[in-house]
């Protein structure tokens, strides 16, 4: 859940980007700093994508490996170079294991939600000299979706994850154990359940006529190539993928993306060129000469919307979910400290520290004049979180000395400090950025400030267009 208020601009380009989920709107912003002017990497939505873990969905619990992998996924320490400097982690782009529709880095993005992993900023050694930005894929159901990468270049999820860390984000070589944990975590992220999908990927229950027609069209052979149909590549019984790459007229060979939970994954295609199912259907109609009528296209969209759905795609952000996540991470230390697993301990502490700082920022300080009310409550919450951060620091120092006995005591102290902080956080929550009205006032003030900083000469520039 990473997102400190990152600071990154030189000039003030533009202005606002919508994002999915409920919540606020925020402006592209930035400061003199690590990322280019106009960068937007935070996701400050009031609702966050819901993360379903397969282990829990089938009645079990998250393993040590899954929790360690989750912590590593949220630790800037896993990455290197500019990403770590900017406080980014894997979770910056894959928010709660999905994606970040607001992610935008000028020069590396075609639009919000896309990103060029072979650009000059994060690992100059991987810079290929072109902006070939792609969407950040959701990791829901990743265990079923090999090969990996939009072009399917990696058969192994483990190899792919290592490549992202080391080659794309200039991180240090992760240990085999950390890679195992990351893979365990990613493979535990399940699809959101969809009660409309029955055995074999067939729609079940009360279906509309349009859905029925759409499903039939989905299986219908293409007029000019009867060996093909939508379903021949998006195999319904197999998570709507065929594990193969195809040229579908999108400038190269790309693997078949899953259609499960795809309602929440826009923009579509590897480079995010389409914002809606309607645009996608129109593309296939044109490229494969399908001869679809307007009604056919509508029916296909209706069908795609039904199979791409998922239950409770978002959940409200707040103190409680944040605390649950922090405790999940910290629980790793119960085993990692006595095992003297320095790499695991360091990643967990880094992830928890980032979470605590982010949590603190949700309680506006006294100088945040946009927020009224609850001043004392907010101050107490911030103070309590800061004490928790220092408690974690003492734990970190003992662990760095490999003084397991002291570190274990510090872990107990940390838990007590965090438990003592919880009532203050809960009391301040109505005046925090978890509250829609408070968040609206805060982000409106921030947007106003950034708009005041727009140089008219810069604002008149056209936004970046990859087709220029």
């Amino acid at each position, binding site marked *: 859940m990473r997102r400190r208020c990152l600071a990154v601009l030189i000039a003030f380009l533009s202005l606002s980007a919508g994002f999915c989920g409920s919540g606020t709107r925020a402006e592209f912003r930035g400061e003199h*700093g690590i990322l280019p002017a106009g960068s937007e990497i935070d996701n400050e939505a009031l609702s966050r994508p819901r993360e379903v873990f397969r282990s829990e969905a089938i009645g079990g619990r998250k393993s040590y490996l899954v929790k360690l992998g989750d912590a590593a996924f949220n630790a800037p320490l896993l990455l290197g170079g500019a990403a770590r400097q900017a406080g980014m982690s894997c979770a910056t782009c894959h928010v709660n294991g999905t994606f970040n529709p607001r992610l935008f880095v000028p020069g590396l993005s075609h639009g919000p939600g896309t990103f060029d992993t072979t650009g000059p900023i994060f690992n100059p050694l991987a810079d290929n000299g072109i902006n070939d930005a792609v969407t950040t894929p959701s990791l829901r159901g990743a265990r079923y979706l090999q090969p990996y990468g939009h072009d399917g270049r990696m058969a192994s999820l483990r190899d792919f994850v290592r490549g992202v860390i080391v080659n794309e984000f200039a991180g240090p070589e992760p240990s085999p154990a950390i890679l195992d944990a990351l893979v365990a975590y990613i493979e535990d992220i399940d699809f959101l359940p969809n009660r409309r999908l029955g055995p074999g990927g067939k729609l079940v229950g009360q279906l509309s006529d349009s859905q029925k027609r759409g499903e039939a069209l989905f299986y219908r052979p293409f007029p000019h190539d009867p060996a093909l149909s939508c379903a021949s590549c998006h195999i319904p019984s197999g998570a709507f993928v065929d594990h193969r790459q195809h040229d579908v007229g999108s400038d190269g060979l790309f693997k078949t993306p899953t259609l499960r939970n795809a309602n929440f994954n826009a923009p579509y295609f590897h480079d995010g060129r389409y914002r809606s199912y309607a645009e996608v259907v129109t593309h296939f109609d044109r490229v494969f000469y399908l001869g679809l009528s307007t009604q056919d296209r509508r029916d296909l969209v209706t069908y795609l919307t039904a199979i791409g759905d998922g239950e409770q795609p978002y959940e409200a952000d707040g103190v409680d979910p944040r605390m649950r996540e922090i405790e999940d991470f910290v629980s790793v230390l119960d085993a990692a400290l006595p095992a003297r697993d320095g790499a695991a301990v360091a990643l967990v502490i880094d992830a928890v520290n980032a979470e605590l700082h982010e949590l603190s920022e949700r309680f506006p300080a006294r100088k945040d004049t946009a927020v009224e009310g609850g001043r004392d409550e907010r101050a107490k919450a911030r103070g309590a979180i800061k004490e928790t951060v220092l408690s974690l*620091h003492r734990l970190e120092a003992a662990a760095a000395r490999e003084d397991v006995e002291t570190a274990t005591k510090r872990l107990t102290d940390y838990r007590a400090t965090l438990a003592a902080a919880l009532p203050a956080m809960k009391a301040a929550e109505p005046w925090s950025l978890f509250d829609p009205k408070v968040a609206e006032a805060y982000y409106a003030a921030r947007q106003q400030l950034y708009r005041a900083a727009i*140089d008219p000469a810069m604002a008149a520039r056209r936004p970046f267009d990859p087709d220029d």
Partner: protein
Amino acid sequence: MTATHLPAVQRLRHVLAGLIPVALAVMPTAPSAAAEFGAGIAQYKSFLGEQIARSGDAAAALRDRVAAGDLAGAQRAWLEARGGWEAAEVVADEFFPELDAAIDAWPDAKHGFHAIEAKLFGAHSTDTLAESEALLANLRTFRQKLEATGLTAQGLLNGAAKLAFEIGENKSDGGESPFSGNSLAEIGDNLAGIDAAYREVFAAPLAAADAALDRKVRATIEEFHAVTAAGDLAKLDQTHLRRLSEELATALQAAGPVIGLQKPVLED
């Protein structure tokens, strides 16, 4: 750290080098009451007065340059005013929270340093006369209140610990002064303020009561200076800075009871 701020920091260090032996000579070896911090507090208050005067003078120049439509001059004056303010920040929130909120509001497009910063450095406009006049008035009020207020050792320790923590919390990633790119210089100014508070008010009694803790605080501050001397935010080791920030806040918290004060709170 910008060239604008280097002379001030160097001057501060020069002054401190001369003051420390004096302070060591006059401070009791084991203070048991807040009154025993009086001499150090007086010295530190002198430092604060100098910083706020510097900020106020620069704010007057800022107002004049804005009125004259001199963007470059206004930007230089803003940076100078900011330097003095940040060096005095140990006392801002702790003793004068309302003025602090008016002078250093965030996010606020109408009041304070950052509203002016957005216009000058973002929009490259000098259309900020009203805000500049208000800032000047608030800084003058701040100076008057500072002169009239009796600073307490506990309040100064609280302020120093809070600021030490704050540097690692949200200043190090560049977010303090986003439009001017002045954040690294401001970290240096904050550090100069903490350094002065520690050396003038707390170093001698702590050295007498717990020499090891005193050495730890001094070493952490020195390391802090070295890390922030990177000169480029992108080259700053953020993790190291965050740890130093927490280390210094922790050490200052530990110092409180050792020198007869309460453990400083980080937010109140």
